């Protein structure tokens, strides 16, 4: 797919390299140029651990600079944070409170409708999405409570899985329509994706 000049430059704030490669590959499949996709950087140095506290920590600063920069640059932000043992709503709420305590506590989303900021919350984690994407078509059951993470996988294998899953999602699953996606957190992510105006 050729890139389009009207597509935004996207910055990814996420927990680890699996998530970053997944989002990057998906955006490339949607027509974004590789150099237009920037990684915010993992402040902990890419250790694959539960890293969601750092996402909540950096999200407000990123948003503050985004709001200033978007006035003169076509930019977008993708945030990804695993739900882990909490719910999707809990994670959204903690990000909303971090950005605007008052709005967040009132269960309001402080993002403006025209802000190109998408928040993806895989439940239970990104491996759930990988499992769903790669197995749902074969009719295997997938739920958001089971931890599908295979701790024996090497970094290379995880990256390959992330990229393969992103391609399959973009080329085979999304074209069938959001309504066909049974996994709630992935279906919700598709509505968030519309914020990027790709």
């Amino acid at each position, binding site marked *: 797919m050729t890139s389009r000049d009207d597509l935004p*430059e996207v*910055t990814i704030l996420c927990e680890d390299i699996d998530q970053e490669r997944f989002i990057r590959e998906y955006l490339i499949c949607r027509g974004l140029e590789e150099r237009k996709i*920037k990684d*915010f*950087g993992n402040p902990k140095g890419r250790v694959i651990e539960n890293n969601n506290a750092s996402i909540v920590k950096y999200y*407000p*600063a*990123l948003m*503050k*600079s*985004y709001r*200033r*920069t978007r*006035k*003169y*640059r076509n*930019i977008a932000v993708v945030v990804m944070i695993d739900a882990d043992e909490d719910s999707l709503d809990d994670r959204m709420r903690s990000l909303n409170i971090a950005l605007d305590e008052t709005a967040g506590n009132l269960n309001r989303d402080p993002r403006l409708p025209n802000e190109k900021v998408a928040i993806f919350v895989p439940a239970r984690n990104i491996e759930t999405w990988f499992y769903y994407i790669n197995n749902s078509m074969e009719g295997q059951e997938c739920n958001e409570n089971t931890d599908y993470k295979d701790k024996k996988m090497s970094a290379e294998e995880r990256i390959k899985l992330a990229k393969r899953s992103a391609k399959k999602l973009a080329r085979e699953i999304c074209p069938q329509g959001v309504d066909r996606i049974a996994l709630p957190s992935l279906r919700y992510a598709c509505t968030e994706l519309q914020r990027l105006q790709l």
Partner: protein
Amino acid sequence: MLKRIYVNNFRCLVNFELTVAGLNLFMGSNGSGKTTVFEVLRKLQKFILGDQAFQQDYKVSDLFASKDLTRWQKSNIQKFELDIEGNGGIYKYTLEIEHQGDYAPPRMRLESLTFDGQPLFNFWVDAGDRGMPVGQARLYNDDPDREGAFLPFFDWSRSGIGLIYERPDNLKLTWFKKRISNFFIVQINPYIMESKSLKEESSPNWDMSNYAAWYSYLSQESQGKIFKLTLELQKIIQGFDSFQNHKSGDVRILSASFTRPSKAAYRLNELSHGQKALIALYTLIYCSPDDNFTLCIDEPENFLALPEIKPWWGRVIDYCLENQAQVMLISHHPSLINYLASNSGYWFERKDNEAVRVRRITDTEEEGLSVAKLIELGWIYDE
């Protein structure tokens, strides 16, 4: 200190004007013109003084090539201006170079130096007899009420100011030349830092390849500074004890003695690139002139381990404050950028490969991202 530089029609610098302060950090994308500013300063220094390290004079044609004219400009005239504060006033140096195509060498069209508006030297081209252009110059002396000497047939192939020697009545002009010699402009390349020196050289060259020759000079002329440098390097480089600069036939060989794990000496070129870069960077601080001095370093962080960058930079700031020195750095390093950019940062940019524009960094905001992070994400300026 250098207050202002103006360049027109030199590579990507078109009608380019930059005012600078004591501490300056140049940032920007690759190819945005940062190093070109240093190259202009080097060319002007060489043009006015010759190459001190190699005791060589330069003609216009040695330094200014038509390939350095801005490719998309039609004019064949390049213009350079420097405003330098010092000696109780402001010096303004102006140089215009006229390129004459492939069949004639470039020549000076104008060279002038003023001090607080008072002329010290002026070269210009006049239409002579039979319409042939003739270079003419006037050399003024320090007393503005005395008329200067008119020089009717002046060589336009080299700097007039460079030819003038110090006399009791031209101390203002010679102060300027001394100040120009106190620009140390370097891009340290430890790969070619040799341990051998054939002679002493009074300043480092651009890539610091003559470090050993500069050290030979410093060890003769500035023993106190070398002593301080040695004490500092003992703290920085594990096991380092001192330098030895032994004569071996016609050359001297610079070695570093180490005390741990056992006493041993290593030639300069046997040290790691990082160690050589550290030695060069600390020598620039400890062994530079005592005052009225400008240090221009292109990417000092190259080759350094992360923990070494801030301590070196701390020393630079101390040195500047103590000695009224000026520092201009080009850096892409986040720790230098975050430390300096909000007060001393200049952002170089070239939209669509056009001429360079420079802005002072004003983009810092409370609670937002750091300047280095904004640069990393491409979120700085370029609107």
